[in-house]
């Protein structure tokens, strides 16, 4: 059976499964093009969302690449289907896994998610999950629950007090919605159905949630390792094993994802790998970054870049034995055609620290030969002079 036929069949099965499953939409699906009266509580929620969206347009973190946002919007549109005309995507360069969609159609997708998705199917599932929160009115339902427990004015003051760096993040606003277990389960199931209906791989849903759990377990910090895995740093409901099992069950029998699909997705994000990995290193949870790099390297692509950043993670972590591990990673990167030139400078520095002067000399000389008129050339020349005992090379 060809993949499109398999997917069409799976789509029908999934739709049927979801229809007969215990997932009962908690809220009626919103009408296409729906816009609430500003005088209503929903209108107030839209006003806050409009404000967050306005601020997003000038944020320093807004990714202004002319191709990336249209690409992500295209994926969002496929899973949003009937709501495509209402979805407005903003990609923010923030190194955390997060996507969120406001009631007004404003969707934030953070680079930490794009870096962690291994395929377009994984991205599509996460966006489908968020579109489901939007389509099923989860935000409004949660908002009403929050309001019933607190004065509405007080809640908006809380939003104001949660502004990060003077800016209102959609995620901060979303955190007040506090999706419950039922809503998250529904968003998983219906998000998967949306992704499958759009032709994406069903197994991607459980795969990306599972990998997030593995990354949590790889953290340098015991408290993080002990904590629940969440699909967003703002989420209140964790990704529990039963949610993953439910997605596995829904996708049972599906074909494994094709390497070709992952390669096409990588082509979309390849040029951002250095900047996004640098951002990730600045989180200083090197266990998680190393796990992420291994996941990115699993398909055998971009190994020069990925091995370089693996070396950077070890060099920065500075645990026992990390200098040797950094050397191994840099040396591996140096054998790849896509290695950044900086790899020879870093390799030289590490080898010099390990007392491997002959190897360090070779690495420095290679850097100088490749780096052209790099502004740190004098630094490397000084290092070379130092290991040569003060004599010019």
């Amino acid at each position: 059976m060809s993949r499109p036929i398999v997917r069409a069949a799976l789509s029908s099965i999934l739709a049927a499964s979801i229809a007969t499953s215990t997932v009962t939409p908690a809220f009626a699906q919103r009408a296409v093009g729906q816009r609430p009266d500003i005088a209503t509580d929903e209108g107030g929620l839209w006003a806050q969302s409009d404000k967050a969206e306005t601020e997003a347009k000038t944020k320093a973190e807004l990714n202004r690449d002319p191709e990336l946002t249209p690409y992500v919007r295209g994926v969002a549109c496929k899973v949003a289907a009937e709501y495509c005309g209402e979805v407005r995507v903003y990609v923010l360069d923030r190194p955390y896994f997060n996507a969120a969609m406001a009631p007004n159609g404003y969707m934030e997708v953070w680079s930490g998610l794009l870096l962690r998705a291994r395929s377009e199917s994984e991205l599509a599932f996460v966006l489908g999950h968020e579109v489901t929160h939007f389509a099923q009115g989860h935000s409004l339902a949660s908002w009403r629950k929050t309001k019933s427990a607190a004065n509405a004015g007080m809640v908006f003051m809380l939003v104001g007090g949660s502004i990060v760096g003077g800016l209102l993040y959609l995620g901060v606003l979303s955190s007040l919605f506090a999706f419950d277990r039922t809503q998250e389960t529904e968003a998983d199931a219906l998000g998967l159905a949306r992704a499958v209906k759009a032709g994406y791989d069903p197994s991607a849903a459980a795969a990306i949630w599972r990998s997030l759990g593995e990354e949590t377990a790889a953290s340098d910090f015991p408290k993080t390792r002990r904590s629940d895995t969440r699909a967003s740093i703002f989420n209140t409901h964790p990704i529990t094993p039963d949610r993953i099992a439910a997605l596995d069950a829904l996708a049972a029998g599906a074909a494994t994802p094709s390497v070709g699909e992952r390669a096409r997705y990588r082509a979309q994000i390849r040029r951002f790998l250095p900047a996004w990995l640098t951002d990730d290193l600045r989180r200083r949870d090197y266990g998680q970054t190393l796990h992420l790099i291994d996941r990115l390297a699993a398909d055998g692509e971009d190994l020069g870049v990925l091995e370089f950043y693996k070396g950077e993670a070890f060099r920065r972590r500075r645990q026992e034995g990390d200098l040797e591990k950094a050397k191994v990673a840099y040396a591996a990167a140096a054998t790849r055609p896509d290695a950044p030139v900086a790899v020879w400078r870093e390799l030289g520095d590490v080898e010099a620290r390990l007392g491997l002067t002959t190897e360090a000399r070779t690495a420095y000389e290679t850097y100088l030969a490749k780096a052209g008129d790099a502004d740190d050339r004098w630094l490397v020349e000084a290092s070379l002079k130092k290991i040569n005992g003060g004599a010019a090379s």
Partner: protein
Amino acid sequence: MIIRSLRIGAAAGALLALAACAGIKAVPAGPYVHGGTSMTVGRTWTDLGLVPGSPKALRMLTIDGPALNTLFVIDGLKDGEYIVRATSKERPTPTYRRGISPSEQVEFLADSTAAIGFQRVETDNIRPVTVSGVDGVRVDLTAQTAAGLNVSGTAQLVEVGGRLYILFYVAPTEHYFEATRAEVEAIMGSAKITG
């Protein structure tokens, strides 16, 4: 905590920081000494004093207010010390390590600048400098505030006796950075380490 919340270009944050500073005082033109760092300023600056939550080694000097121009004077960070205090163990900030290479010193400054809250921090034009007979590095930086305002910076870093001495100036790129650049260059040129 205070320095972490400070965002150049965010007036409210700056006001909060100012309100929390202890010992704000005018610095008239002439010699300025902070610990083992001495330098000469060519006009009146304001020393914001000890900023709560930041290391004792750090002082912030400004002409027009921290949102418009700030000279960070960091007097000899010891091994394990930071410019920006971490708010939790799980969100660590960069710490200085004795004996790091000059390029790692620049990396430490860039990462600390990002930890303050600046976005898209880039370093450029790394060049040698000698301060009190010790080799150090000069570097320029560009970044943006969270709200998207372009800022420029220039810094001088030198390690003496296993301690890192930094002068780091940052201001909005438009008007303010260039308007005060000559003064800052003169200050950096006059700096001496006696610590």
